[in-house]
């Protein structure tokens, strides 16, 4: 079984600082980490490897420094690393990114057919959750998003069963492979790397692929050229400035305060009061 995990190196948003003098975001010195959601995807892949045996390839598109993220994934137990890196990829939006990654996965499949592609549910720097579905569409993979657990997989029969979070509850879905699964947070946390894997992660060469090596002929589909997304404006949403009402703590018992709150809600939102069965004023 061949599993490909797509990961992304992102700035650790918990440690981003604003330069106190110039008020600009200080990228320098902000540590780069593996997108936290991708860690859950890596762990799912490794658990499948433990259970059924699999070759796990980690794939990322990014600058040469992104190899640190790949090495980390190998320390956890992944087998191979592929880094898509080329100036031609720069400035890619989710459409161009998913195209490039899909091409690379197609290329990887030439060596050994890919049964399963895993990604995190979204990245913490873009928050779009579009790249996974984009890859699935292009490679004609069964798409399973927001998966909280892979409950079963049959490598011979080529089927997979997952639990998927949806608005109303949990869906249990069984489908055929090859599939693409985007993994939710909250499953098993990433394992502690063993010493032999730490050594391997430092020593194993990273396969670096440029545009041609990734099997991409049409430069119009990658990088800035292949990116129709236009960021017209970046702004902080204005905070609402409706007045807050203070309901006095001096009123005494919690019960009294609570009924004051309900009265107020009832008078401002009559429908809400009716639905709750509160006496309309």
């Amino acid at each position: 079984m061949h599993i490909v995990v797509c990961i992304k190196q992102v700035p650790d948003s918990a440690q981003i600082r604003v330069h106190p003098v110039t008020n600009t975001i200080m990228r320098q010195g902000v540590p780069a980490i593996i997108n936290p959601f991708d860690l859950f995807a890596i762990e799912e892949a490794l658990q499948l490897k433990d259970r059924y045996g699999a070759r796990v390839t980690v794939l990322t598109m990014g600058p040469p420094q992104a190899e640190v993220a790949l090495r980390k994934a190998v320390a956890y137990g992944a087998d191979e690393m592929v880094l898509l890196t080329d100036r031609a990829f720069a400035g890619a939006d989710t459409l161009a990114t998913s195209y490039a990654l899909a091409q690379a996965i197609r290329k990887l499949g030439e060596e050994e057919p890919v049964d399963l592609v895993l990604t995190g549910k979204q990245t913490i720097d873009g928050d779009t959750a579009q790249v996974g579905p984009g890859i699935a569409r292009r490679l004609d993979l069964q798409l399973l998003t927001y998966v909280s657990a892979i409950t079963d997989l049959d490598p011979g029969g080529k089927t997979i069963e997952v639990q998927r979070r949806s608005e109303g509850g949990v869906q249990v879905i069984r489908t055929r492979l090859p599939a693409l699964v985007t993994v939710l947070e909250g499953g098993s946390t990433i394992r502690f790397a063993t010493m032999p894997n730490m050594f391997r992660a430092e020593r194993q060469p990273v396969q670096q692929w440029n545009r041609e090596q990734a099997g991409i002929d049409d430069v119009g589909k990658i990088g800035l050229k292949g990116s129709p997304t236009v960021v017209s404006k970046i702004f902080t949403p204005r905070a609402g400035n409706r007045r807050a009402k203070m309901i006095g703590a001096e009123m005494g018992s919690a019960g009294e305060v609570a009924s004051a709150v309900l009265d107020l809600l009832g008078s401002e939102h009559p429908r809400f009061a009716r639905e709750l069965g509160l006496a309309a004023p």
Partner: protein
Amino acid sequence: MTEKFDAIVVGAGPAGNAAAYTLASAGLKVLQLERGETPGTKNVQGAILYSDALERIIPDFRNEAPLERHIIEQRMWVLDDDSAIGTSYRSEAFSSDRPNRYTILRAPFDRWFSEKVRAAGALVICETTVTELLQEGGRVVGVRTDREEGDIYADVVILADGVNSLLARKAGFHGELDPRNVALAVKEIHFLPEETLQGRFNIKGSEGVVIEIAGAVTHGMVGTAFLYTNRESITLGIGCLLSDFKKTRVPPYALLEELKQHPAIAPLIEGGEMKEYAAHLIPEGGYKAIPKLYGEGWMIVGDSAGLVNAAHREGSNLAMTSGRIAAETVIALHGKGLPCSQENLAVYRAALDESFVMKDLKKYRELPEVLHGNPHFFSVYPKLFNRAAHTMLTVDGEDKHSKEKTVRRSFVEQRSLLGLMGDAYRMWRATR
């Protein structure tokens, strides 16, 4: 794991990096283990980098290392509650093409040094804590780490794990750290625009100023404070002996707050934005507190060996030098095909004795004891010197002769003539 190395270095501070770099550059098979996420994440220093020690390891470090400012002026201040007396030395000669001292920020500096170690061919593994030394028949044969399948073997283990080396203690090479032999220091970094900083300190380009501070701010405890200029920030810190903190129960950060509010300091950092706060121990027991430095299959270097010259606030250079000498010892033995036995590793101690490291520590060997037994050096004298200056510099119709008499009387009243002579003698003995 069955893999074996020529040497394992524990820790990626200046001592460990110097050792690993030297070993790997000579073609030895080296493993370096660091518990921090990346080298430098856990390390704290003022920090002044002394060029000489690094130059002997990486001669052209100036072209690539992340340096903040080269020091052209050193001030020494003795504070009273709202005054300061001091001296300073400034020289254009310090702006030569090979400046002698620089301010650095340890996080980027350590990261750079570690990259050099990797490039030299050492295997550098971070986020891994060495939990104990593996011993067989009284010989250290490797290390145990906190990872699965994490026992690793080597001909020699170099301990560069910093002050309060748990590993050395666990193996029985050290005793418990005596609180009288260790200082606790706290420091902050304050951001300021480069032009503001240059204006305030009367410097241009990458010139820098350091201020070493003693006096009332330590509340009579044995300790000092410092202020260093970085490119776009100021590092300000203060440290005192742990035993004194225990006695006075003054919280260290309260001292730092007082220091920041002192009228001689406050205007220098005004408008700056605090960026980071850190606390760390410094081994200050000096020569007499140095433990055994080597044995069967092991050596200790840097802070974990207590190699800090507190009187001159030198630590990283002793760390790098001891790391380098330890590595050179192993390289020589390796070349001759000799084992890293206790007998053969004695060369390390001998070479260290011949270097400035031990010579300087020996020179100040009585100092910790003297400072400890004479707390008035940190309480009475700062006041006396400040008052003397105040008296002499106030023009109020009183004649100079009478003023001198007042000053003399204040000294004798506080310390008695014999006391003064004794103090002078003790200080001379402790630093000669």
